[in-house]
């Protein structure tokens, strides 16, 4: 038997203290198989050991929350006996090493998390962050990640309906791939992972187990260095055909009443799924690995337990229902095997070839996993309003901004995703939120992902608030009531006090905003150690928000619809240029304070706008965010399709002295709406009466954006700039802009 040396302990990503703790918990030294199991169960990825103490502060309950964090995904009630099940998860490290398979298996993994709870996935979203466009790897990573997401999601027949994409040098060595899946189930047919009761069969189904992905969870819990590409073998390989079969077979099994508990095999595979199921059910689990369907010969217990082969599920069935389940999997031509039994011992016992290879109390793997109160330093937030050149041309700046990597159209990406399969996509990518009808009903789910890492770097607390506020705003802007969120917290190394400070402040900001906006966090994922050679990423706590439209016919989109509509700005403009797109793209600087977020104003303005859309008075609305009012107006014009290729607008402002600050400032809690004249007068009066800052900026019409009566730019010219950058960049035609 292999002797456990300090070097082996270190290779497993465990500290000497953690190893000592394992010995105390077991009352003996672990063998190599047990050490492997502890290493994955106690990895940052599985145990949340650095963040758990802080995550507890997030609000997770609400009147419509059926299941908060702790299960495979969060569950909310959307009325009429329907539930929405959703979660976002990262696949950052694998996607950097092998972008196609990393992204593809990220999609597959998050889909399994959702259908393992009884939901049919109905929409996918992706929040992607790449390094600067000029970095030699960026184009290859964009291409691979997008193909991987499309390759998997398109085959599954689940529409990929939106997300976000950004570029920044801090992601040069550490891209972020956060995938979100949203599914719909019946509230009376939701499945959980608690393996309650002794003597019940533990069954395995799906693809066979191979040697791929061993120690993926441990890799995802460490920093990168120049040799990280040697970790390519730890990246799993996806098979969307197998997942499609698994989805249909699992839902078919769920239509029977044979299942007691079910869990997908994700990170740390068989180990993590069996330990979590036993832990939640308060039972023990005994597995016989001889029965595990294997793709390769001669696999050891260690390899089988730590394999992250994809498209596999574990379930506990009611005794005597094995044959019924097996028939379903046979129909779908998937492997099915009874591989163990639940016990009342509270222990995870692994047998292989007649030997007991591991025997550990399950609580030692779960509850007893270390929780660290890591030391942290709360950095002083960046302050001040940056100086800038007030003489610059507004239309020229707009044209440059609309073609900037951060702002250019993402059509090149989303046209590679099937976004209309299932025939319920009501709002396609390109708007504020994607809208997907709940099949066979009039209601719809609105979905968005948001975070502004620039703000989070300058001020993690306000940045965390802003991510939540913007997610709500994007949902409000289509007319949906924000219901709940999932968070995907991407940060650097938590063992550095300043990084830990970003994590703590970011979570605090998210929590404060979620409480104020009645927007509980029902699921999520942490991705730490996003560093290469000691360089951390911008703090990137991505928020995935879900809202409900009760009647999909009362919905707004960003596109101008008619000439002669009055353009109305809701919310106060002070001209906040700190950390703005304008400052970065035009002045080439990232500095100053992040915009402050007034949560009371967010709530009030959101409810006001939502009310206008919900009672059918407004059908054109856009949240004001990156690039300020003028970028938002440009997007509304570009989304329109008049006879001449887009409806323009003539707009002016008189509220603040400096035009640049007004048009490009990124003050929060603002929306633009466009409404026919008769309606507009009343809307303005109602806003004033409610104490909401409101301004009429002008009217839609023509083919140009006319600014302050003196400057103009053709919508067609903006379109060429906005649509041109991405295809040129990917074709290698454009010398990439450094940022």
């Amino acid at each position: 038997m292999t002797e456990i040396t300090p070097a082996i302990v270190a290779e497993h990503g465990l500290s000497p203290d953690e190893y000592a703790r394992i010995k105390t918990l077991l009352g003996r030294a672990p063998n190599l198989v047990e050490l492997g199991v502890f290493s994955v169960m106690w990895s940052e990825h599985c145990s949340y050991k650095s963040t758990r103490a802080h995550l507890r502060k997030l609000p997770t309950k609400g009147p419509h929350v059926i299941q908060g964090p702790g299960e495979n995904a969060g569950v909310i009630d959307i009325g009429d006996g329907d539930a929405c099940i959703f979660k976002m998860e990262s696949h950052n490290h694998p996607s950097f090493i092998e972008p196609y398979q990393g992204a593809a298996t990220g999609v597959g993994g998050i889909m399994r998390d959702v259908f393992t709870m009884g939901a049919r996935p109905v929409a996918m979203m992706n929040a992607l962050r790449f390094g600067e466009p000029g970095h030699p790897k960026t184009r290859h990573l964009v291409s691979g990640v997008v193909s991987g997401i499309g390759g998997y999601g398109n085959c599954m027949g689940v529409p990929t309906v939106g997300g976000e994409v950004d570029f920044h040098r801090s992601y040069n060595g550490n891209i972020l791939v956060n995938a979100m899946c949203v599914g719909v189930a019946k509230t009376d047919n939701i499945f959980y992972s608690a393996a309650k009761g002794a003597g019940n069969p533990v069954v395995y189904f799906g693809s066979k187990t191979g040697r791929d992905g061993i120690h993926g969870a441990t890799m995802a819990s460490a920093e990168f260095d120049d040799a990280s590409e040697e970790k390519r073998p730890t990246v799993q390989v996806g098979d969307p055909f197998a997942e499609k079969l698994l989805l249909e077979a699992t839902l078919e099994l769920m239509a029977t009443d044979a299942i007691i508990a079910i869990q997908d095999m994700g990170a740390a595979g068989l180990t993590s799924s069996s330990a979590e199921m036993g832990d939640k059910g308060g039972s023990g689990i005994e597995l016989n690995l001889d029965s595990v369907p294997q793709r390769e010969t001669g696999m050891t217990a260690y390899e089988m337990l730590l394999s992250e082969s994809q498209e596999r599920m574990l379930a506990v069935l009611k005794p005597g229902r094995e044959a019924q389940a097996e028939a379903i999997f046979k129909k779908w031509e998937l492997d099915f095997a009874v591989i163990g039994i639940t016990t009342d011992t509270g222990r995870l016992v692994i047998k292989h070839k007649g030997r007991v290879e591991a025997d550990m109390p399950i609580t030692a793997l779960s509850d007893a996993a270390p929780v660290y109160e890591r030391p942290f330093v709360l950095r002083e937030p960046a302050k001040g309003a940056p100086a800038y050149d007030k003489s610059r041309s507004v239309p020229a700046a707009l044209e440059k901004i609309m073609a900037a990597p951060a702002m250019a159209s993402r059509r090149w990406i989303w046209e590679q995703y099937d976004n209309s399969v299932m025939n319920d996509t009501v709002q396609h990518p390109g708007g504020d939120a994607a809208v997907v009808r709940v099949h066979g009903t009039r209601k719809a789910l609105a979905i968005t992902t948001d975070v502004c890492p620039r703000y989070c770097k300058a001020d993690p607390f306000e940045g965390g608030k802003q991510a939540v506020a913007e997610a709500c705003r994007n949902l409000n802007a289509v007319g949906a009531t924000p219901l709940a969120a999932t968070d995907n917290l991407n940060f650097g190394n938590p063992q550095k006090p300043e990084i830990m400070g970003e994590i703590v402040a970011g979570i605090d900001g998210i929590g404060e905003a979620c409480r104020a906006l009645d927007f509980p966090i029902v699921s999520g994922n942490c991705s730490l150690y996003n560093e290469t050679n000691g360089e951390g990423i911008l703090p990137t706590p991505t928020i995935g928000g879900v809202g409900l439209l009760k009647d999909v016919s009362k919905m707004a989109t960003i596109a101008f619809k008619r000439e002669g509509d009055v353009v109305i700005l809701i919310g106060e403009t002070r001209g906040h240029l700190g950390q703005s797109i304008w400052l970065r793209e035009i002045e080439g600087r990232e500095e100053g304070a992040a915009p402050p977020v007034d949560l009371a104003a967010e709530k009030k303005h959101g409810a006001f706008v939502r009310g206008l859309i919900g009672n059918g008075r407004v059908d054109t609305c856009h949240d004001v965010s990156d690039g300020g009012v003028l970028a938002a107006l440009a997007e509304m014009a570009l989304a329109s399709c008049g006879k001449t290729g887009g409806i323009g607008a003539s707009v002016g402002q008189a509220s603040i002295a400096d035009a640049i600050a007004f048009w490009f400032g990124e003050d929060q809690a603002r929306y633009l709406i466009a409404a026919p004249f008769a309606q507009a007068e009343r809307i303005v009066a109602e806003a004033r009466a409610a104490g909401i800052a409101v301004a009429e900026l002008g009217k839609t019409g023509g083919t140009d954006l006319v600014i302050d009566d003196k400057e103009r730019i053709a919508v067609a010219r903006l379109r060429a700039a906005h649509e041109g950058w991405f295809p040129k960049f990917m074709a290698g035609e454009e010398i990439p802009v450094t940022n």
Partner: protein
Amino acid sequence: MKSAVIVFPASNCDRDAKVALEEMTGKSPHMVWHQDSELPDVDLVVIPGGFSYGDYLRCGAMASQSPVMRAVKSHADKGGAVLGICNGFQVLTESHLLPGALMRNAGLKFVCKPVALTVAESQNAFTRGYDKGQTVTFPVAHGEGNYYADDATLDRLEGEGRVVFRYQANPNGSARDIAGILSEKRNVLGLMPHPERAVDPATGGTDGRALFKSLIEALS
């Protein structure tokens, strides 16, 4: 009109086809599993979009060898109507119910977007409800929709009025902008764009409704 929709293990537009047929005919189609070797008594067989058996080999190549496709061939041989959409079109060419082949898109990327099509032919059961020359918009969503046939075959297709839909802006490199073609007996139509995703004003528009109405008129 009685209809059936073929279900391969990774078909993924089978529900969309079913919903469109229900909406247009008021009747549920039979959903026929790929291992069935007989078809129910129907007027129309729809082979839906998706990835049939994963399509790791040429798209539709394995599906063309499935038990159900023998039954579909015999249905077509007897003059029964067959509509192959997207992956269904690929299955039909692989099964030699339609000439030519569908290659990887010229841009090498999957493409999903609404496309404008010209109805090039309206003398058949599928498009009699459209005017010849009319523009319709259907979504496309495919990675391998680049239609290829040798020049003699293309000339023959055009000469016999068997090119039914043409792209106005070719999204995939298809020869002569061909988006959909008929069989020699004009009872089998394969097309890459999705008419079943164009029957609902809330999602993909309503330009596809006339295709189903044409079939109902012709086959009922």
